[in-house]
């Protein structure tokens, strides 16, 4: 386990990026990188479930949203600080996952995907309806005081989340846990026949992949200081998580990272001038990737240039 | 070239990148009943799928009635007079018996010919005429097999491929199936049968092939294969 040069390089990059908010970098660049971190964390969380076990979730934004609302409510009602409130957001997301995980994960492929989509819509409508708790369509504002500027703190928090989720995925990928998740993806019946308690493993993956988006949602709510149901439970978040992971490579550690960085910057460059063009591009990217490079960019590189990917390291 | 109706020459075929057949050959003359036997995984059903055009062979040729049919689509193969009864779920369960038979004649657009063939099939299997408006899924296993064969006959084929016709049937129906084979042969139809039940299959066959691991192992008349000690020991259970 001696540190390889590339690990040092990664560490260096993290540190360089960490000083960005206090350096002379324009605020916009800081918030850009902040959102890249956020999407790395979100996409990687989605990957933990949908990439590794093959259970595609079309409603993952529900955990992000529930985290955001928990944080906003506990901060405005109980005066909780943002950090414990965000963690509570993660806990609430896990709570929801516990509640729905067992019944939903019994459903196969498309049924699971679409029941998750339905669920996220139900929760959005509930957030609109339960006005005494959630502020309804008016949302919750002034989650934090306007000053001091929270950007540096939120930036570091998002960076930490990105690093944490990637690290967790890395650890899982190398451990037997990861192998078992992959065996569920390849052939769930066979995995069961081999004596793997697939229900339990699916559930662990589900809970983990709900926990991180919950926290991230909380931090995001703190940063925006204003949330309302339609933009908090926007389908676009789910789309982003899925597409970033698929683009980079499902079921790999680095796929979602590549996807998040590339696609977030692309959409950011495109959407201000052409507000909807990135959707067209995203749709095209998904179709092209699914049809022609089903293992994503990483898989594509691996087959084109096997030299770049050391033998024995499965992507 | 001999007077074969069907000849399969050294075909190599399989699914994806994996080959199942490594050069299988067969020859069937008009009016013959030929049985193909062999252990699981020998590639018996794959031979049929390759003949019918579900799979395209990587090497080798399939000739039928004097023409090369290698690589044709299933519907094109059928139009040339080959018909096929796949194994397993072999009828359309939610369609009536009549609709099943109509589907069998999908490639036949001449109504008069269709009616004539339908009458012949009903004659051959009176039970189907009786139950023509019943959903096929409600028939017994044996009846479903009759229906499947009847359906395959709806194109008036020159040659019929039967894939495991006795699979999963009660003994009473197994006997019925092989009786049917004999009747079809008496009508002058050429048949190729793939079977697990090797003894029964060889009993009704003029000739037989034994496949093993995607290769030809033995080829002889049905009777001589039945009495071949090695075949007996290996495939007929002693």
């Amino acid at each position, binding site marked *: 386990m001696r540190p390889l040069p590339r690990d040092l390089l990664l560490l260096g990059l993290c540190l360089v990026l960490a000083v960005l908010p206090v350096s002379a970098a*324009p*605020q916009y660049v800081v918030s850009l990188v902040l959102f890249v971190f956020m999407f790395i964390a979100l996409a990687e969380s989605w990957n933990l479930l949908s990439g590794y076990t093959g259970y595609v979730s079309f409603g993952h934004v529900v955990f992000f949203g529930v985290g955001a609302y928990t944080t906003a409510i506990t901060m405005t009602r109980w005066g909780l600080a943002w950090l414990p409130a965000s963690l509570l957001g993660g806990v609430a997301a896990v709570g929801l996952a516990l509640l729905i995980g067992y019944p939903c994960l019994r459903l196969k492929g498309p049924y699971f995907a679409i029941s998750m989509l339905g669920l996220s819509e139900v929760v959005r409508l509930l957030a609109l309806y339960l006005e005494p708790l959630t502020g309804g369509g*008016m*949302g919750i504002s002034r989650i934090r005081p306007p000053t001091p500027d929270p950007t540096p703190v939120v930036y570091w928090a998002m960076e930490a989340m990105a690093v944490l989720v990637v690290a967790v995925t890395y650890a899982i990928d190398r451990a037997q846990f990861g192998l078992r998740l992959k065996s569920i993806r390849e052939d769930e019946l066979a995995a069961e026949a081999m004596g793997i308690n697939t229900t339990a493993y699916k559930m662990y993956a589900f809970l983990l992949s709900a926990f991180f988006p919950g926290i991230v949602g909380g931090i995001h709510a703190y940063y925006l200081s*204003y949330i*309302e149901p*339609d933009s908090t439970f926007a389908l676009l978040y789910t789309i982003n998580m899925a597409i970033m992971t698929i683009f980079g490579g499902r079921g790999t550690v680095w796929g979602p990272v590549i996807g998040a960085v590339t696609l977030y910057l692309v959409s950011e460059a495109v959407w*201000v001038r052409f507000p909807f063009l990135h959707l067209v591009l995203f749709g095209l990217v998904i179709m092209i990737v699914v049809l022609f490079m089903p293992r994503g960019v990483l898989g594509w590189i691996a087959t084109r240039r096997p030299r770049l990917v050391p033998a024995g390291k499965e992507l | 070239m001999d007077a074969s109706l069907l000849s399969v020459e050294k075909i190599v075929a399989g699914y994806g990148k994996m080959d199942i057949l490594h050069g299988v050959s067969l020859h069937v003359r008009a009016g013959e009943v030929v049985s193909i036997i062999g252990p699981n995984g020998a590639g018996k059903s794959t031979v049929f799928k390759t003949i019918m055009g579900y799979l395209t062979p990587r090497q080798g040729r399939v000739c039928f009635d004097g023409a090369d049919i290698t690589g044709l689509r299933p519907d094109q193969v059928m139009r040339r007079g080959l018909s096929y009864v796949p194994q397993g779920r072999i009828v359309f369960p939610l369609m009536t018996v009549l609709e099943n038979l109509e589907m069998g004649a999908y490639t036949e657009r001449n109504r008069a010919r269709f009616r004539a063939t339908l009458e012949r099939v009903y004659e051959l299997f009176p039970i189907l005429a009786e139950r023509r408006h019943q959903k096929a899924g409600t028939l017994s296993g044996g009846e479903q097999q009759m229906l499947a064969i009847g359906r395959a006959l709806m194109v008036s084929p020159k040659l019929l491929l039967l894939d495991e016709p006795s699979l999963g049937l009660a003994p009473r129906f197994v006997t019925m199936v092989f009786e049917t084979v004999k009747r079809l042969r008496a009508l002058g139809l050429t048949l190729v049968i793939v079977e697990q039940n090797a003894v029964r299959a060889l009993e009704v066959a003029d000739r037989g092939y034994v496949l093993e691991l995607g290769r030809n192992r033995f080829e002889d008349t049905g009777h001589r294969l039945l009495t071949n000690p090695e075949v007996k020991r290996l495939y007929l259970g002693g």
Partner: protein
Amino acid sequence: MKTRHVLWVLVLLVAVALSGPTQAAEPIKIGAAISLTGKYGRTGEYQLEGYQLWVKQVNERGGLLGRPVELIVLDDKSDPATSVKLYEKLITVDQVDLVLAPYSSAVTYAVAPVTEKYGYPMLAAGASSTKIWEQGYRYIFMMVSPAEVYLEGAVDIAARNGLKTVAMLAENSLFPKASAAGTKKLLQARGMELVFYEEYPKTVTDFSAVMLKLQQLRPEVVLANTYFPDAVIITRQMKEYNVSPKLYAATVGPALPDFYESLGKTAEYVYGPSQWDIKLKTPGNAEFVKAYTELHGRPPDYHSASGYASCVMLEMAVKQVGSLDRDKIRDALARLDTTTVFGDYAVDEQGKQLKHKMVLLQWQDGQLEIVWPDELATAPPRFPTPPWEQRG
């Protein structure tokens, strides 16, 4: 190896992001993110066209402080969260000198903390929910009459004609709810009975269930706290379901010329409050309407007028201050007491509007007529609204 590639991509992308253009330019840059698409798109467009007219005029006059004015416009897609990001971008990346307001109370509510954080004064041309001004913000000023009094004219006409039962609908978002809350108080004061009140989500497209309930209840008055798209759908479905109140008004929608375009004769008799009207005798109004129609090829609506007026007042404040010092501009706006094409303007210490007055319009033979208040009326209200089957 693969990790190194990932890193290269990362470094490259960050470098690209960092190298964005950030040089100071000669013209005064004014930024606005506004809803050009989505639910608030139609109304947002009118507001933007008001901004654009002013930019054209000020540049023809030789610019502001002798410098040309450049307007940077972004589309927030009617989404508050998006708008927050856009104003952040306008202020930090585009480094605009001044900002103009977005459209709708909900979006303004979300954006206010951002403009507050950077100290950018903002005249809220498209926000009427007083809640925004109860947060202690110092840099945002209200121009329009508050949401709570939008339906005052409709309630007044109904009460004067002895109508008693009222059904009310409201979109579940900031402005419609504020309007509904204010209207409830007005109804109480006039001794009218609210027999039905229901909220609906922003995304709703079908009001069948509501219409069936209204069929049962047969209220004399229907008041809808809406934006343009749902105002159109509600009006149409009232006709489909033969809901025939004696008076029907909707907050945002009927006062727009597009309302008649969308609904044709179905729009007849419908009342809609307006912050402003073409026919008002405010100073310079006729010239404004003429110039606007020439530039954009269609007549302005009240969002156009408030958008235009917000620019004019910003110009006044800048001229008073004589520089782009945003804190001083803020103070000037807080003290300003003036009348524009849009009407009177003066704010209290919270930034809430004190002087501006609303009118109530009604569609009469394809024309919008002012029917309330009496002293400004261009025509008497056509009352009561006949049942659908008796209309042409």
